[in-house]
């Protein structure tokens, strides 16, 4: 083995803490175990069997739930027998109509686009890893998945929707639609997906694929 290759192998066995940069040697963990930084307690890596299958399953569920949430009614107002229905796009559309297009785009991005694109890319990468297929743009896709992670905020939107429901409930009869339940389930599914998918595991798997 060349010295460069040997050095590279040694470095693969090391992990640096993201919070305090302390170097650690990778040690085998028991199933379900989490390795934490000895100095500041941040999580370093973990040992989870079937993480790929779990992440894939939850990502699929989340994708379906997101699609359902986008299509069905979030909330409806009773106007003397006639129901006025609002969905995920209603808020951004009205913001746009009032001329607040940066806000409209921000809301659309955080509730629909960021989670949606991230899930689509995640499914692309995870299915490729599972099948051992080297499809194009896998590296770029995984990088985008990591980048978009903090910009999807469906759980915050859900809370905002509930506050709006309470606020409007004072002057009208407002009922919750099926999309509220599916959106709530989406938040849970997305949580589970993020818990199952450790980016470092994905990068290791991607490297083994190449």
């Amino acid at each position, binding site marked *: 083995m060349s010295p460069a290759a040997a*050095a590279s192998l040694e*470095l*693969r066995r*090391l*992990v*640096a803490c993201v*919070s*305090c*940069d*302390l*170097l650690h040697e990778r040690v085998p963990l028991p199933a379900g175990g989490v390795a934490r930084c*000895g*100095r*500041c*307690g*941040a999580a370093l890596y973990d040992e989870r069997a079937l993480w790929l299958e779990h992440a894939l399953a939850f990502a699929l569920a989340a994708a379906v739930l997101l699609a359902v949430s986008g299509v069905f009614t*979030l*909330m409806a*107002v009773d*106007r003397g027998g006639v129901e*006025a229905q*609002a969905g995920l796009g*209603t*808020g*951004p*559309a*009205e*913001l746009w109509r*009032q001329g*607040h297009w*940066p*806000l*409209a785009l*921000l*809301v659309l991005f*955080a*509730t629909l686009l960021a989670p949606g694109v991230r899930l689509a890319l995640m499914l692309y990468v995870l299915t490729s890893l599972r099948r051992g297929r080297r499809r194009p743009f896998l*590296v770029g896709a*995984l*990088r985008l998945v*990591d980048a978009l992670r*903090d910009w999807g*905020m469906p759980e*915050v*939107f859900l*809370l905002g*929707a509930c*506050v*709006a*429901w*309470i*606020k*409007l409930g*004072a*002057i*009208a009869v407002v009922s919750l639609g099926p999309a509220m339940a599916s959106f709530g389930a989406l938040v849970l599914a997305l949580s589970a997906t993020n818990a199952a998918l450790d*980016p*470092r595991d994905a*990068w290791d798997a*991607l490297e083994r694929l190449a």
Partner: protein
Amino acid sequence: MMSAARAGLVACEECGRLWPRGGAKRPRCGRCGARLHARRPDSLARTTALLVAAAILLIPANVLPILHTTLAGRVKDDTILSGIQGFFASGQVAVALLVLFASFVVPGVKIVGLTWMLLSVRFRWDWRLRDRTMLYRLIEFVGRWSMVDVFMISILVGLVRLSALATIEVGPGAPWFAAVVVLTMLASHSFDPRLMWDVREARR
């Protein structure tokens, strides 16, 4: 036990892989193609700039009204604060506290907290380091919840327009508030907590 930087290694920000600190001008990670840097580029300068901008924008965000309501002939302008007062007045204390927390406490903690961390690096404080790291992680985690008010407004105006019960217009304060949230999120992304630990390493 030493930091990666002291060992002459650089960890890739995106995929975690370690590389030796090379002589290349602008090295890239061999695994994922991301730019390699020992610490987040211009971390102190960028974070400071973003925090100052966020602090300045807090003024229009709170002074300018975020909602303009016309209901049964009555016209009302609401700032974030008056909206919270409205919730308290109508007995919805839980909601009032929630919006107060999300719109004031969280952004406040973020700005003050990140400022404290910036100062600790600038003036080389080596005090309660682990607490500061925990605070950083908390700030990263909780930052997005300030967006509650923005999402609430978006649903509210959409639903009210459909129902034609009243007329609610989004006020000029709303985009400034959204900007404050986004800027503080960017600020915590650009701050590198490892800088705080570098201070301790330098003392050893």
